[in-house]
């Protein structure tokens, strides 16, 4: 855990989420507390049905808790309207999905540019330039004009990470980012997340794979809608070192 003078990025208190399906109630979250400091890299684990997806949706401002409070980057967001939540997602959050979710027949540059087009603050004018810089950060400076169909899965996921980075969000939420990738490519992606984290990005990783979770600094595990484990990883591993064993040329792009 970080020291107390590091600013809190996420402060969730007693979050519950109840789904109503007809007459039955499903209590997906039963009072979750979570605090994330700036610059942390946290893995959220749990089996399917544990509530980790629900927690992820609430932390990602895609859903609102039934009760409890959620403060993101110093502002309460659990009571915001739909449009305000959209703006919070645009300004403060970056999403990385399991299935990459890139727009087909659209270049890497345009895909990365996409969140900037929905910016309402009017501060982000040079969208092309920002998108290009984000792609360079993920090592795809030479693939800007490629379309998803012309790229490997690992490259596509790096484009998706660049898209999450481009708005300089407070947190990047990655939902099973390695779920569709082979183990070597998974290591490259985890290495990229670790590199970004070293550069100061807060990363929240949802995974059910324990060996992926070990690249985080802290693991939060859920079961039946409550946190059953929240502890630092005692010996964090470095994906770059693990990947080096593969000796694959594609690593040249990531440093």
């Amino acid at each position, binding site marked *: 855990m970080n020291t107390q003078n590091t600013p809190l990025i996420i402060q969730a208190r007693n979050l519950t989420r109840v789904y109503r399906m007809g007459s039955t109630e499903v209590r997906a979250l039963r009072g979750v507390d979570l605090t994330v400091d700036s610059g942390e890299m946290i893995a959220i684990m749990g089996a399917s049905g544990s509530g980790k997806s629900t927690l992820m949706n609430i932390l990602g401002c895609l859903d609102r808790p039934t009760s409890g409070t959620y403060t993101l980057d110093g502002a309460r967001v659990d009571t915001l309207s739909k449009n305000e939540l*959209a703006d919070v997602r645009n300004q403060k959050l970056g*999403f990385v999905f399991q299935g990459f979710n890139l727009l087909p027949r659209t270049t890497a540059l345009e895909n990365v540019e996409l969140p900037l087009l929905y910016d309402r603050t009017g501060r982000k004018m040079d969208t092309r330039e920002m998108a290009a810089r984000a792609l360079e950060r993920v090592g795809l400076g030479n693939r800007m004009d490629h379309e998803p169909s012309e790229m490997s899965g690992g490259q596509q996921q790096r484009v998706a990470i660049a898209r999450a980075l481009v708005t300089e969000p407070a947190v990047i939420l990655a939902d099973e980012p390695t779920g569709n990738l082979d183990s070597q490519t998974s290591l490259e992606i985890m290495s990229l997340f670790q590199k970004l984290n070293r550069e100061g990005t807060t990363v929240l990783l949802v995974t059910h794979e324990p060996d992926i979770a070990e690249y985080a600094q802290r693991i939060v595990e859920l079961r039946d809608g409550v946190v059953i484990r929240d502890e630092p990883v005692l010996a964090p591993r470095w994906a770059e070192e693990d990947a080096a064993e593969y000796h694959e040329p594609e690593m040249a792009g990531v440093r």
Partner: protein
Amino acid sequence: MKNDILLKIAGKSILKNKMRTLLTMLGVIIGVGAVSVLAAVGTGAKSQIEEQIQNLGTNLIVITAGSTSQGGVSQGAQSFNRLSLEDVEALEGQSFLLAGVSPIISSRAQMVGGSGNWVTSAEGVDVDYTVIRDWPLASGAFFQQEDLRSNGKVVVLGSTVAEALFPYEDPVGQQIRVRDVPFSIIGVLAPKGQTASGRDLDDVILVPYTTAQTRLSGRQFIPQILASTYTPEDIPAAQEEIRAILRDAHGLARNESDDFEVRNQSELTDTASETARIMTLLLSAIAGISLLVGGIGIMNIMLVSVTERTREIGLRLALGARGADVLTQFLVEAVVMSLAGGVVGVALGFTGSEIVKAVTGWNTMISPQIVLLALGFAGGVGVFFGFYPARRAAALDPIEALRYE
């Protein structure tokens, strides 16, 4: 979002499925195309009718003998003819607004001369006639007051008659016999064409009305008087003036109805306008139906597109798009598609109307108003039928949409 980006996104997604887009637009293309062709033909036909009515003469007022009623029973038009030369003289003497007044005494007449014989309408008219009908002479001269006074046996030929009897020579100065009476030809009228109903206006000969009364028809009453004003604006006032003069001349009491009728060109034009109005109504019905069908096609494809792109919508929402952004995106897509269909349809209509022009010789024309109207309607269809699918897209829940397979 910036407008050019919206257009780019819409264009990209429309071009992604070219065949499907084309088939979807076909409804709007055919609708707008058909409407432009028909409107062009209609406009052409209308301008043709108006031209023909203009041919009858400008600022023309027609006075005919009217009906009388005896003991409350109407006797029908011209049942009791009270138009006379005195009326013509009264109009000529008392009117301030009329440029010319002429009685028309027509009869069918057989004539022999030149290269053969011909049957035509012989009209006894006044010297003002060419002014009233705005009808210049091709050659020779019109008759004068002198000819009227002397019941002169002079005749002016319509161009059809001149063609028929004197195909190879100038008829002016020649002699013809009309009903066995020898007449000298003093002039030939310029060709005027046909009436709206197809009657040949040039198949006529003109003689002084005095001559017509004494030598051709033998009747003293006058079935019709033509008059003209200096400007079209004078027509309503002139009609009132004519009524007042004729009522006075006929000695009609206040409670008696007119025993004559005064009509003007605009009433004839009204008939043509009515025809054009019905045509427009018909066109609007066709346009409405085809655009409705085209619009339903667009709505259908947009609904498919929204379903197909559920994950894309989910992604956009997750990245911070508001519902309104998604709504605008799909609405723009629908409008671009229907507007593009409208443009192609207008182009098609242009080609079609040129073909109609080449085949029939009608003066078809696509006015800018038709183009604007067609495009306006096409755009309107896009907005109307694109709104429901776009709203469905905007109302999607981002979590569900992202999970959609």
